[in-house]
């Protein structure tokens, strides 16, 4: 089963359609003729899997799926007996207890994580399919989080049957346990929505009344109506202040108790003072009311905080997928009989033996007891190519077995595994994250202290001089200095820019990242999957003079068709239509395949393998190339004779060179840090124009290197994608995860790219710079206004109504200025 992150091609246009699988859009192999009549036309399929999936979809009467979909479907996989057995483990009581939510009677509920959803039509198809099963009571698929909630009757349908039916139409579903944290996120989000609704609806009503009051002040209004409107406004503002604004008060209070001053304090004081003085004016019938300013203030601030936390939660929703980094089930081999039985991976004990089939994820750390295979550790170490492992070698939980079945003795489980160690270093890195200097908070904190002092001084001065005027003057100073505009300056700019960035495909999880970005001096890139595509491409073929390139490629492809190794796939995809058929293909320990084509025996594999097994000698110039080479090579040989050498490289992303150059043009130092070999890293660094290149780094070494940079007063932006990058992403001053990144990396990055374009990194910098410019303009204006108006108010020159108007206008100016960011 495919466990790597699959990338699906665009839907091919009509002309290219014939050459591609109708279901998944992959190119059609030439030696296969599979087709199915869909919508009255003959459609070709690339494999048995797609054919079976398409048949299942058509048979259920869901061919509408093919009409409304906007993306290709994931490549189909046959419903293999292994999957059926694996899914049946979910029917055992012990495992069901973890995932099933028992409702009344036989009715129960389960949450499923879905994989392979490419467009909205997939959701429709999945809902239709599950709903048509007998015993299903309700099914709801959430497109945003790619989860399904299924309620069904346990007596009539087994959980494994639901999983299998989803698998049959080409998707993967796994039950998951909605974590406590997610539950509380959910509650928190609804709470925020309620507060926003209250602030919005009551706010609009208050604004409406205020307009009548303003108009009345202009053209004259009967005192009784005015009083009535004021009392109404008071009543309508009450829920806004008493309910919608509560989070500001509680957070300000919490900060005060911890002897910190945050932006919430001036915000709370502004709300409370404006509201209290308006209440006073209403009760006494004298002075001005500022209910409109209060509600506008609360609404805008709540909205900006809501959008920020939405973006964060949306990303955090992928946290549970992390569970999948380690599989849920393992095949335990019985110590006595040697029989394999599926058990929960969490139930494994050190010393037990497990069977790991090709395509499976290693369930725990261990040592190979028998078998040999290539292991893909790219997510853990950043090493792009699968590593060959033989008995006695160590296996890491979370790596993927690529080629052959293995028997592994478990040595470490749970908290002792390397995967758990990486998770712990993430937690440590987050705890050590450099404290964020929040400009607005700092300025506002000093400002508010100053203002309070001034108010007291002014009140005292006027009290001594002219006791009749002291309250009005002190009030005018308070209102004029109300840091509304100042408090709104940053949040409005940030929420406007978050919205814009989301449209551009940049998901900002921590808004503070925008403030940090402009200070960034060093940009650290990971290699595999970040600067490069993360999949090998056939780069070069060297042939012995007596062989033709095409012939060698065809022979090699015929052999490699029997392997699931990424290099094999890269080779097969380059082979032309000329098909040879290899027989008796077997894979040999030490990295190679051998097989027979037209009664001649061929071998393909590593240089050591070919020289040892086939007795072939390689021309010295090939060996020279191999030594200093950044590429990975395999050699094809017939008995005693080398034929060709194929060299693969992990291709650079199209925009990698431009992006690095653009960053350097901004004056940033670009650093490459990778877990891969030095030669490979050097070549990539040379191609991209990166001078500082560090290779063969463990996650811990990466953190140490970033810490060293930070100690030298550098501000570091980390761009990465693997699980091995996750600790660094958390520890760097700010970080960006690629679209195809592992979930652990996404969770720990401040910004997640939603498209797979590296050039987006430049856009992030652009937006951050624009946001900062707007924020500074806003702050500048707010400070100018406040400091200009305070002396005037202190001298008793400003009437409170004028102060209120000024406050509203300056807040409005700030909001309008921020909205320029969305253009």
């Amino acid at each position, binding site marked *: 089963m495919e466990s790597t992150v699959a990338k699906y091609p665009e839907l091919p246009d009509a002309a290219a359609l014939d050459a591609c699988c109708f279901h998944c859009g992959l190119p059609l192999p030439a030696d296969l003729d599979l087709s199915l009549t869909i919508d009255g036309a003959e459609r070709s399929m690339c494999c048995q899997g797609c054919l079976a999936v398409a048949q299942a979809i058509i048979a259920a*009467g869901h061919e*509408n799926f093919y009409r409304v979909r906007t993306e290709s479907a994931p490549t189909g996989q046959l419903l293999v007996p292994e999957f059926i057995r694996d899914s049946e483990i979910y029917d055992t009581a012990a495992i069901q207890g973890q995932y099933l939510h028992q409702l009344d009677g036989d009715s129960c509920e389960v949450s499923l994580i879905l994989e392979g959803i490419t467009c909205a*039509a997939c959701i*429709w198809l999945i809902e239709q399919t599950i709903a048509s099963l007998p015993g299903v009571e309700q099914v709801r698929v959430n*497109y*945003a989080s790619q989860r399904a909630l299924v309620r069904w009757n346990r007596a009539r349908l087994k959980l494994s049957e639901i999983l299998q039916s989803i698998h049959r139409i080409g998707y993967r579903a796994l039950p998951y346990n909605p974590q406590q944290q997610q539950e509380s996120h959910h509650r928190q989000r609804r709470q925020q929505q309620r507060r926003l609704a*209250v602030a919005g*609806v009551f706010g609009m009503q208050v604004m409406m009344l205020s307009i009548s009051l303003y108009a009345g002040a202009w053209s004259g209004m009967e005192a009784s109506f005015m009083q009535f409107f004021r009392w109404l406004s008071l009543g309508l503002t009450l829920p806004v202040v008493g309910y919608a604004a509560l989070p500001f008060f509680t957070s300000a209070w919490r900060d005060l108790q911890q002897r910190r001053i945050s932006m919430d304090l001036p915000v709370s004081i502004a709300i409370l003072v404006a509201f209290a003085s308006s209440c006073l004016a209403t009760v006494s019938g004298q002075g001005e009311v500022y209910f409109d300013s209060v509600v506008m203030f609360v609404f805008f601030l709540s909205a900006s905080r809501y959008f920020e936390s939405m973006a964060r939660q949306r990303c955090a929703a992928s946290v549970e997928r992390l569970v999948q980094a380690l599989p849920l089930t393992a095949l335990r081999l019985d110590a006595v009989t040697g029989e394999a039985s599926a058990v929960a991976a969490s139930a494994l004990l050190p010393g037990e033996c497990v069977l790991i089939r090709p395509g499976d994820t290693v369930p725990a750390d261990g040592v190979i007891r028998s078998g040999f295979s290539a292991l893909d550790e790219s997510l853990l170490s950043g090493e792009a190519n699968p590593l060959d492992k033989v008995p006695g070698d160590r296996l890491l939980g979370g790596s993927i077995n690529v080629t052959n079945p293995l028997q592994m003795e478990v040595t470490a489980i749970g908290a002792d595994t390397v995967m758990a160690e990486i998770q712990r270093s993430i937690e440590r890195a987050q705890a050590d994250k450099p404290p964020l200097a929040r400009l607005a908070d700092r300025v506002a904190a000093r400002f508010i202290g100053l203002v309070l002092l001034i108010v007291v001084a002014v009140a005292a001065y006027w009290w001594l001089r002219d006791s009749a005027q002291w309250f009005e003057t002190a009030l005018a100073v308070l209102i004029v200095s109300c840091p509304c505009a100042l408090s709104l300056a940053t949040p409005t700019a940030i929420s406007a820019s978050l919205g814009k960035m989301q449209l551009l495909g940049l998901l900002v999880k921590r808004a503070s990242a925008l403030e940090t970005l402009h200070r960034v001096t060093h940009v650290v890139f990971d290699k595999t999957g970040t600067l490069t595509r993360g999949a090998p491409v056939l780069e070069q073929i060297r042939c012995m003079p007596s062989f033709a390139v095409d012939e060698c490629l065809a022979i090699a492809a015929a052999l490699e068709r029997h392997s699931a190794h990424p290099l094999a796939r890269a080779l097969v995809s380059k082979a032309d239509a000329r098909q040879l058929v290899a027989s008796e293909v077997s894979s040999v320990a030490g990295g190679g395949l051998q097989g027979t084509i037209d009664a001649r025996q061929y071998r393909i594999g590593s240089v050591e393998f070919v020289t040892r097994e086939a007795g072939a000698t390689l021309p010295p110039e090939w060996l020279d190339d191999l030594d200093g080479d950044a590429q990975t090579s395999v050699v094809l040989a017939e008995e005693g004779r080398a034929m060709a050498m194929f060299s693969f490289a992990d291709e650079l992303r199209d925009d990698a060179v431009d992006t690095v150059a653009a960053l350097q043009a901004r004056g940033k130092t670009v650093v490459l840090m990778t877990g891969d070999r030095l030669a490979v890293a050097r070549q990539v660094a040379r191609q991209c124009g990166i001078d500082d290149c560090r290779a063969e780094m463990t996650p811990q070494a990466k953190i140490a290197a970033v810490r060293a940079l930070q100690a030298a007063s550098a501000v570091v932006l980390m761009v990465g994608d693997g699980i091995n990058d996750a600790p660094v992403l958390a520890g760097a001053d700010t970080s960006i995860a690629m679209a195809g990144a592992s979930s652990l990396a996404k969770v720990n990055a401040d910004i997640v790219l939603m498209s797979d374009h590296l050039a987006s990194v430049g856009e992030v910098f652009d937006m951050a710079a624009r946001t900062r410019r707007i924020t500074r303009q806003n702050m500048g204006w707010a400070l100018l206004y406040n400091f200009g108006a305070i002396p005037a108010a202190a001298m008793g020159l400003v009437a409170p109504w004028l102060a209120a108007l000024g406050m509203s206008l300056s807040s409005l100016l700030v909001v309008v200025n921020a909205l320029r960011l969305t253009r």
Partner: protein
Amino acid sequence: MEIIYLLIPISLLLLGLIVWILLWAVRSGQYDDMEGPAHRILMDEDQVVERDDEQAKK
């Protein structure tokens, strides 16, 4: 202008209704998935039923 003493209470009733509807919408999860329904509406089950009927006629 005394009519305002009647109109405003009516508008307040309306306001109460709006708030209640919004709170109900939040509680029943109307805002939980802001993307799916936009697509879902384009793919109604009815189309499939129609399709089946067409085939039955043929």
